[in-house]
């Protein structure tokens, strides 16, 4: 089994593990953020570049460093690999650059966005972004679009992670939406605004890391942090029927799949992924429909979980301790001093 070290922490992992998975096994601050990678979806990852890490030593046999930062979600570990994530200022700068690119055309309409509070882009920008933007040009804009009665697409918020495309490819028959146009104009769309109509289309909402795909039945009903998440189940002939209900009083405002700390849908006992069908998600909006198991254990870090920003502070502490440097995310020293006013 390959032995690797990530930020000076050694771990032994099975052959074929990616750097990101290895980091998740260690857990804590050193896990690179992942916006497009989704372990339950094949061939996902590699697009957003937020999970980039620096490989200081390729392997035991070939100790040369990798010339470029690598996408940890798609790079397999090799025996003797030395990876630096939060202990490399260079890497944190590179990631801040990626976050800046992701936010460049983002409308930052969190106050009216249903995803706010459980949005990965929000978390990412708090943890790795900068306070302001250097982009002075107009942001690109799209008209919101309805994918049928239940799914709303707000393309302005999309970061083109391709997760929803992979869900449609791998969970449902006959994908009828995808990425159209190219480059900066690329957008998620259906063929001439066709409705997406199949039993598992709702999972697109669950995998979307931002507020681009939202639940129309939950739209503008409540902020997520005013709802109480409880785990519940029912007998469903289409899916596993294990869901999370987001309640306010006796009212079920929203039904989603159960997710783990990385925002990914959890596995069933038999190893399959606990995707849920559209009946469970959109039709069963009464407490009578469900057997309540108890309050959900929200372990993922987001404002809906308690003490989220406690852990944020600990990231900075770790960085500072390990590097003896300034807390990252507060003031970067750009490699070439480009933005330092004293260095004109």
């Amino acid at each position, binding site marked *: 089994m390959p032995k690797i070290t990530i930020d000076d922490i050694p771990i032994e992992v099975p052959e074929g593990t990616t750097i990101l998975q290895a980091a998740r096994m260690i857990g804590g601050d050193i896990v690179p953020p992942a916006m497009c990678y989704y372990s339950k979806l094949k061939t996902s990852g590699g697009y957003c*570049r937020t999970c980039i890490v620096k490989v200081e030593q390729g392997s035991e046999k070939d100790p040369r460093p990798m010339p470029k930062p690598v996408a940890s979600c798609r790079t397999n570990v090799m025996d003797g690999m030395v990876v630096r994530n939060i202990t490399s200022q260079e890497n944190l700068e590179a990631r801040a650059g*990626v976050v800046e*690119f992701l936010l460049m055309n983002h409308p930052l309409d969190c106050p009216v966005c249903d995803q706010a509070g459980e949005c990965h882009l929000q978390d990412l920008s708090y943890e790795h972004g900068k306070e302001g933007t250097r982009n002075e040009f107009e942001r690109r804009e799209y008209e919101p679009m309805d994918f049928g009665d239940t799914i709303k697409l707000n393309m302005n918020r999309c970061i083109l992670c391709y997760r929803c495309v992979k869900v449609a490819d791998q969970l449902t028959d006959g994908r009828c939406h995808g990425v159209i*146009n*190219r480059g*900066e104009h*690329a957008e998620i769309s259906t063929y001439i605004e066709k409705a997406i109509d199949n039993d598992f289309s709702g999972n697109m909402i669950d995998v979307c890391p931002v507020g681009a795909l939202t639940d129309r039945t939950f739209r503008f009903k409540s902020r997520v942090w005013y709802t109480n998440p409880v785990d519940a189940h029912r007998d469903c002939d289409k899916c596993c029927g294990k869901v999370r209900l987001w309640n306010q009083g006796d009212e079920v405002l929203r039904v989603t799949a159960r997710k783990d700390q990385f925002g990914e849908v959890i596995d069933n006992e038999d190893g399959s992924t606990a995707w849920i069908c559209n009946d469970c998600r959109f039709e069963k909006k009464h407490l009578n429909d469900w057997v309540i198991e108890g309050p959900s254990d929200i372990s993922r870090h987001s404002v809906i979980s308690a003490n989220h920003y406690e852990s944020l502070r600990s990231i900075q502490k770790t960085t500072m301790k390990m590097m003896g440097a300034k807390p990252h995310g507060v003031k970067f020293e750009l490699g070439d001093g*480009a*933005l330092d006013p004293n260095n004109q």
Partner: protein
Amino acid sequence: MSKKLLLKNDHIPGINTLATYKENGGYAVLTNALKNLSPDAIVEEVKKSGLRGRGGAGFPTGMKWSFLAKPEGVPRYLVCNADESEPGTFKDRYLMERIPHLLVEGMILSSFALGANTSYIYIRGEYFYVANILEKAIDEAYQAGYLGKNILGTGFNLDLYVQVGAGAYICGEETALLESLEGKRGNPRIKPPFPAVAGLYGCPTVVNNVETIAAVVPIIEMGGEEYAKIGIGKSTGTKLISASGHINKPGVYEIELGLPVEEFIYSEEWCGGIRGGRKMKAVVAGGSSVPILPTELILKTVNGEPRLMSYESLGDGGFISGTMLGSGGFIVMDEETSIVKNLYTFSRFYHHESCGQCSPCREGIGWMERILEKILDGRGTLADIDLLWDIQSKIEGKTICPLGEAAAWPVAAAIRHFRPEFEAYVTNPDSIKDIKHYYRLKN
């Protein structure tokens, strides 16, 4: 007179037909090789020749071929990359237009060496008329028994197809090309796996440039060792250079690698000097993606040695003072050229051609283009120049495919070598009023 291997017969009228091509020694190499050489022997010759990929990266072809996985019962493919879209590069078009049979012969030879029974030529959409020329040549080859079943009685079968792309620059990247060839959206794949293991339809695939495949014919004709004697050091053989810009004689030239750059630009045999007796300002030596170099650095390295047309010599000094041979798109600019405007044109191109898959390239290049547009408009600030530098450093090396780098390098090099010109645009916008004409491509 320099050595010519690929273009030695291009002046003969009718060389695009099979009859004339055969009269001038065409298909003799193939006939001989199919009957007397084993596939491994051909790969060995190519290895000995030291031939390096002519598409831009300069990876040794023999090594690439030997990486090809050969699992039992799985077909292997050879794909010829004729999606020549790099601005400033037009050598492959010339070759295919003039001597299509040379490419066809090279394809058959290479397919035989690699054990491929189906091969494709992926040609860019704008070259539709070249595709017709190739199709005609392939038809002639089928009729003459050089393609199809049991070629020349040797038992080797090969079907060769021409596939026309839809004119996307990104489809010149080998994995995007394979996606496009499979009928999908032309997005680069994430490597590994490399095409040599899982390429077209998940099978082992070799993707080579047109010129590389054509060069296999003279290599087998003369032998790998003889070929390796041509050129200089690890840059063996001859290279087609597409010379363009402010020179007296633009065109496609076949040079022996190792020719001094100064001789190439000023000799009557090649470019014939700068147009109108002006002075040279800068050269982009290998297609728009490689760093631009000012006159003093393109003619001589920092050590004072004359720069040669070879992979090593042009690369001398890294990106601080050197550049790359790239695809051989040699763009010469005279003293009246605006580097900023030229850079804007390049950035506009990359912005338009980015596939939009990974975020730094999708968002960053458009941003750079808009900043350059602002500077050109006379609305820029000195901080914008630093911002440009910072953006390019955030794109370079962070993307899936080399398109991000191709867009970042020209920006970095232009600022590195021509910063005062950028500053002039900012501090004295009046001085540029008369050269403010440029085209704005709408989306």
